[in-house]
């Protein structure tokens, strides 16, 4: 869509379909180790689902990819996260610029208490968008399959929308700044089944353009919507770690690890 934004990242040279890669990742909250030694390569323009029992660190790992953990004063991330060949945790990288390229959708729909239009436009505006804002808002809302429902009430407060609509607005807000990766932290867990279905459909369409990483507790959702699945577990010291990672079909039909099999068949967790 012809937007040029200056950023510190190198242009994509050789990442062989890999959008982002974590190497030897560990996350500590104060003295507590929340995630231990995790390495994962996330495929570009695919949907990768993170599944696992509660407290296994999957949300923490997700938030590593756009440096959202920086906001927690006690959090400490070690290891490397490579995005376009550069470690986003290198000292000269600005988290603000990372988040422009790696967007996020949260568990609870959290639109700004402003107009629908402003929700979509704000991110673009603060990031120095110079094109036609009306056009961007319309395109983005169409993209998020929300345009037809809201085109007549763009100036209305976003909080007047239903929960499902709010969440799609949050997705629209995230893609309005044209990121490369969209992180979704249990995006449908607060929604009813029909709204959930619409979000899943939307994720499938968006995956044509964006790399999506989604944390979910809903195993069926992971199976329905994702191309790849990563299964996380928690050890005796409550540190989360990656158990198995592969194509979703493989993980769900033919898991290599006994623990994965136990989890997806519902024997524990």
């Amino acid at each position: 869509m012809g937007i040029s934004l200056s950023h510190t990242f190198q242009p994509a040279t050789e990442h062989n379909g890999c959008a982002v890669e974590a190497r030897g990742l560990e996350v500590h909250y104060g003295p507590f180790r929340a995630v231990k030694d995790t390495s994962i390569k996330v495929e570009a323009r695919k949907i990768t689902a993170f599944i696992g029992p509660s407290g296994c660190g999957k949300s923490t790992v997700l938030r590593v990819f756009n440096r959202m953990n920086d906001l927690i004063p006690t959090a400490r991330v070690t290891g490397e996260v490579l995005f376009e060949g550069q470690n986003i945790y290198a000292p000269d990288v600005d988290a603000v610029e990372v988040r422009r390229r790696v967007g996020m959708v949260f568990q609870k729909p959290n639109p700004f208490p402003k107009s629908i239009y402003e929700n979509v436009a704000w991110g673009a505006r603060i990031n120095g968008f110079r094109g036609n804002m009306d056009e961007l808002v319309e395109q983005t809302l169409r993209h998020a399959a929300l345009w037809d429902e809201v085109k007549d009430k763009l100036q209305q407060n976003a909080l007047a929308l239903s929960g499902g609509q709010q969440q799609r607005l949050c997705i629209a807000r995230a893609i309005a700044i044209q990121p490369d990766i969209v992180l979704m932290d249990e995006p449908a867990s607060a929604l009813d089944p029909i709204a959930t279905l619409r979000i899943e459909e939307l994720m499938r369409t968006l995956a044509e353009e964006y790399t999506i990483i989604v944390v979910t507790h809903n195993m069926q959702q992971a199976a329905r919507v994702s191309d790849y699945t990563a299964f996380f577990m928690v050890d005796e010291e409550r540190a989360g770690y990656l158990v198995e990672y592969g194509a979703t079909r493989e993980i769900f039909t033919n898991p290599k690890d006994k623990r994965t099999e136990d989890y997806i068949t519902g024997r524990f967790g």
Partner: protein
Amino acid sequence: MTQTGPFNPQTARRHRVGRVWSALFLGAIIIAIIALGALLYNIIDESFGLAAIENRVDPDSLAIEGVPLEDLSKEQLTEILAAHVSAGLLRRFENDQPFAERDRASVYALVLERVVEPQIQATWSLTDSLFRREQVLTEAAEKYPQAKVEFRSWLTPTFLRMPQSSKPELAGVRTAVLGSLWTIFITIALAFPIGVGAAIYLEEYAADNLVNRIIQTNINNLAGVPSIIYGMLGLAIFVRGLEPLTSGAMLGVVDATTANGRTVLSAGLTLALLILPLLIINAQEAIKAVSNSLREASYGLGATRWQTIWYHVLPNALPGILTGTILAISRAIGETAPLVVVGASAFVALDPSGPFSKFTTLPIQIYQWTTRPQDQYRSLAAAAILVLLVLLLSLNATAVLLRNRYSRSV
């Protein structure tokens, strides 16, 4: 309903306990309402009522060719004044402001004050005036045969318009109201930005370390320091220490030889210090109440910390911050002790004209009046309390309106 198993629910007893507590809470509310009602009754009772008024000169005798005094022209009034007061006094009036420049109302006021000289001999409370009217009238007729007994409201437009005066019949609260408004204006103009700024720093920027925790504890403690201590501080720092600045001498606004630091500015600065901890704590609470998910949404879009604060945290915290400001204004406007220490003047007949004026405020004025022995001053004080209450309520109403407008627009 029969209960089974190892349960003894005692429902009746549990409900009874609940009823006892709710009755206690209701009692607390009733006591509060009675106290408030008694206070209001007391003030209103003093503010209105019968008064026995004696004129030194009967205004009817001053009528010229059947035209009553209040309808006479400025020239006629000036003549009456010249005929009744000494030449020296007349020259003094002329020196204050030449008669040619005075308007009719000002001359009329002089005639009332110097010629008619109404003197209130006695006042009765509103309750007595209404329910014991006959007794009051006979008593007045016995004691003050010359006096005219009439129903008098102490809270009149004249009371608001007139400056302080040594005669209770003519005294008003204009200087005190203007003094209060100037002081509050300076207080808010200083304390609001500083308080909100400090709250933003403490909530959004400050790391959780020892130094900041000490600062936080100190702010919480300062909110509970007796206000007279702030008066001492203001006296030492603003009135004495920064005298060249607070008196206006440094800026050349006033004559350096007569300048002193007991000005509106010193009072405003002192009250600003006084309400700063309150403002900071309230603003912090308001900022804390802004949901974290909103902050995350903002950061997630690549907003900087400042953009997040400016576009999301502050607009959403503003209603709460304004509520805190309402409380702080209410506190400041009613403060007396620190202003006495800082040097509010007991008797100021000149309106404050700027930050470097001598000043008095409404609470000080009320305090002055209540310490006088005469009945009339008690009524004046009661009327001034009503003015203070109205001033307070209208300031609060403004803040509430502002708050509602902002919370709708965000």
